[in-house]
């Protein structure tokens, strides 16, 4: 049986790219800003792979667009925003996630009904 951390890590690994697309769909963001947005929604990446390689992959696949702009009082940062292709990928990914989540909920709900008095 996988540990709770290990299972969380595996679950997150499959959807972290979707989470990043969702975060930049809200508005353009640079790397650390995305980390903060994820954390604000209760998703910490401590112990997980970094988001930077994943952002590199999204950029390579044309799912995000980048541009440089000055940040608040800091050096110019590389901002990411979802491209059209990224928006379509996000919509498709959310549909897949919900479908998988509902199926798992249905199975786990069945067990829950048997276990709970």
């Amino acid at each position: 049986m996988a540990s709770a951390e290990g299972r969380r890590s595996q679950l997150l690994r499959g959807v972290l790219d979707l989470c990043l697309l969702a975060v930049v769909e809200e508005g353009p963001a640079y790397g650390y800003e995305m980390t903060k947005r994820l954390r604000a929604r209760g998703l910490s990446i401590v112990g997980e792979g970094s988001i930077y390689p994943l952002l590199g992959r999204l950029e390579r696949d044309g799912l995000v667009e980048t541009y440089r702009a000055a940040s608040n009082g800091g050096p110019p940062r590389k901002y990411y925003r979802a491209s059209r292709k990224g928006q379509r990928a996000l919509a498709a990914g959310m549909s897949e996630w919900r479908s998988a989540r509902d199926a798992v909920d249905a199975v786990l709900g069945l067990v829950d009904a048997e276990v709970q008095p």
Partner: protein
Amino acid sequence: MNQFIEECRREWKRLRVPDPVANEMAADLEADLKEAEAEGTSPHEVLGSGASDPRSFAASWAAERAVIPPPTLTARLRRRSLIHAALAALTLIAAIGAALVIFASPDASAPTTAIRLPAPPYPTSIWTGTNMPERAALARREAELANEHAVFLSQLPEGAVWVQANGGIVLRLPQAHGPGVEIHTVGSILLIVGIVGVILSMLFLLWSSRGGADHSSRRQTA
């Protein structure tokens, strides 16, 4: 923080990531880490598990961005030629080892070993006429020559190769049980080294033909 970025830079340089791209990634990373530090956020919150392994983190990021140039054709050809040369050399070593194992068998009782490879099957003398005394004299002379030839062969130095006029080949091996080197053991070692080397070279050839180290680094993901 600076040490982490320096390690990343070294890795990007090793992977031949173009300088402008490496500088850009390093600048972004430095700005993010500085901001995180100012807010009291640990590097692990920003970099995840990559914080403890800068080289792997840097390689993974560069690979995902597809900024690692593929090895040039000449470099690939040179590497392939080297592998082929190593394969040929190791095959030769294995063949020499096998020959020594076969020819210098440890149960040879003679102090020295001379191996005669078979001569082509054609006659060495052609008899004409029916003059028996002449025939007997020729036979005696032939026996004397054979004796002299045997003496000559026994006096050949160790390691000599003698090619006879009739096409036969004589190999004179050193003592199989001499006080110095055990030829059979040396042959066995060469054979094993050669075979293991050939197998390893072929595996390496197979691995490099499928992309090798570059392919491995590209497969690293977040």
